[in-house]
């Protein structure tokens, strides 16, 4: 039998691999690790997807996935690793959440929130009210947040400071870079027509 050498064991990176995850999840680790080692986009899979039993009766898991972590089955959809690795991935926000800093005038430190978890302005403002223990009030197009001590503002892609609520939610989500809750006289100023 001829000696085949290195090729016989493939790249044999196992000896130097870092082990991830809990002990006892060997198979899943192997798949994830071999993905990382080959610089493939990792295919995280749900723990139950052991692959050795037919799934005739269970509907596929995909549509149960939470937005940030899509449950994936190895090799499905059937796209070659080469293609997965070489296509420019979509903006990071799509996978990792849309985090923006929130500052409040007078507060000693900033907060950070993920805009993606809110369903709309109402939801967002409620969360801000809870987070900073204040009252922002109700938005009106003509008068902003009239009557409130605070006005939520945001810096958009062009670097301008805008009043939260003027544009449709989706547009806000994609253009908001950071939030600032203005207080006092400055805030009241924003409510008046200019």
């Amino acid at each position, binding site marked *: 039998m001829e000696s*085949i*050498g290195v090729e*016989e064991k493939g790249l044999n990176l196992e000896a130097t691999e870092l082990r991830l995850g809990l002990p006892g999840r060997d198979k899943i680790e192997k798949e994830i690790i071999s993905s990382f080692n080959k610089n493939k986009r990792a295919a995280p899979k749900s723990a139950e997807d052991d692959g*050795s039993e037919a*799934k005739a009766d269970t509907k596929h898991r995909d*549509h149960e996935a939470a937005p940030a972590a899509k449950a994936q*089955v190895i090799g499905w959809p059937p796209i070659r690793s*080469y293609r997965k690795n070489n296509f420019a991935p979509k903006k990071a926000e799509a996978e990792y959440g849309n985090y923006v800093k929130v500052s409040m005038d007078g507060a000693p430190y900033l907060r950070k929130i993920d805009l993606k978890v809110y369903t709309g302005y109402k939801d967002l403002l409620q969360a801000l009210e809870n987070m900073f223990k204040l009252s922002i009030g109700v938005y009106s197009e003509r008068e902003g947040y009239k009557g409130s001590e605070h006005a939520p503002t945001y810096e958009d892609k062009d670097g301008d400071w805008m009043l939260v609520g003027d544009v449709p939610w989706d547009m806000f989500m994609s253009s908001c870079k950071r939030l600032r809750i203005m207080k006092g006289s400055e805030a009241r100023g924003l409510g008046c027509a200019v």
Partner: protein
Amino acid sequence: MAYSFPEEVLEYVLSFIKTDKDRNAVSLVCKSWYEIERWCRRRVFIGNCYAVNPRIMIRRFPEIRSVEIKGKPHFADFNLVPEGWGGYFHPWVVAMARAYPMLEEIRLKRMVVSDDCLEMIAKSFKNFRVLVMSSCEGFSTDGLACIAANCRNLRELDLRESEVEDLSGHWLSHFPDTCTSLESLNIACLGSEVCFSALERLVSRCPNLRKLQLNRTVPLEKLPNLLIRAPELVEFGTGAYSAELRPELLSNLVNAFAGCKKLKALSGFWDVVPAYIPAIYPVCCGLTSLNLSYANIQSPDIIKLVSQCQNLQRLWVLDYIEDSGLDVLATCCKKLEELRVFPSDPYDVEPNVSLTEQGLVSVSEGCPKLQSVLYFCRRMSNAALFTIAKNSPNLIRFRLCIIEARAPDYLTYEPLDAGFGAIVENCRELRRLSLSGFLTDRVFEYIGKHAKKLEMLSIAFAGQGDLGLHHVLSGCDSLRKLEIRDCPFGDKALLANAAKLETMRSLWMSSCPVSYGACKLLGQKLRRVNVEVIDERGTPESRPDSCHIEKLYIYRTLSGPRVDTPDFIWTMDEEGNTPQ
């Protein structure tokens, strides 16, 4: 009455007979024809590297000049074949170095090629001309440097989608100044920057350069200088197609592309800045092949481009083209033969683009020459499939991937059996089919009944039981390759159709309820077929015979059981004993 005419005459006649099929037929006529033919065969194709071995190949065909070998099963592309499975080129190159000193061409697909192999190629074959490695792995740019430095008459170096350990771009500088023979260079899969001045000089001194595919790191600004040095180009792949907006760069590009009067195929287009797309407008009317499958451009830009390519025969594109873009394609590109639409965001359940079954229906309506389809989408209906089948009876390859596994007809919620049934019934010349969506055993009944010319079938998450597999194995007369994953097909169909497996190149089954006991039985029943159980949980002997195995690969072979299996593969032997 016996008569003979000189061997030389027959040899001369045979030199006009090129295809394997015809050559094989010739060799069956009689013993002397077999002998004459085998001595003058120059080209051999080995579809499965384990179906035969170097010794057998060399013994039969002593004067080969061109070899093509394929290794891993197709599902290796989707990470279903474990690392270390096999497909090593090494034993082949060692044997050929001794037996075929005049070897000129090597074409490999899904094989493991080491730097040692490349060095051996470089040093053993004086007339070496063509090296194509498609989806191969195991080598580095050091190996490429060796090829560049030593192959005096190299004409083609094509690394097509291989995984190369990219140590540096310097390897390209190893082409000596005396190398002027290059006709085709494809380095698109390489990650690191190649020495650009070396590339430019190489291109300048190779007057026959017809194909050049750059890698992503070659900046757009460098293209004009490169293109004016390669006016004979027929196929060109750009690097990253982006730069800051500069009018003089745009006009330089326009002129450079216009200078390539023979350009028929374009690819590359990573990171596209849309403002630079018009640079290729001058060549659009001559293009027959356009690969935009890495281009992140949106439908309006794709439409503007495609509507100028009236002679387009092949289009690879992302689903950014959307249904609207496919409508335009259908209107403008009447010569279209092949369409591949890839998903831009395959892992999101929600669609990110407006691409549906309608796009494919439009193309089938508008493009009478449509032969080959690969289409990823998120919904399909039987009605659409009926229409496609009716419009495109000349389909040869139909690969449909509905992204959500087991998705039914989105209009009726029924299985897509009838739709695919219409495809196989109407498309009599269909050779390759990939199924997806919600499918019962019924679709396999249709396939077994109608798909008489089908050679390759891919099945995933489909069927109800053994009957489905039985239909396929008993009905598809031309079946050569069958690959199945996550289907409820088990022992019965396999055992009942064991003889069929001797007529096929290979069968792959993974995550199917096939028992170890059945594998052992198959091993006993089948002669000259390897039944390989792949199981990373350790020896199947440690579990009951009724336990399902993870993966199964069965293929016919003249070579007996493999001698290079890794520790997670067990070959069932003919005595039904414990293997290995």
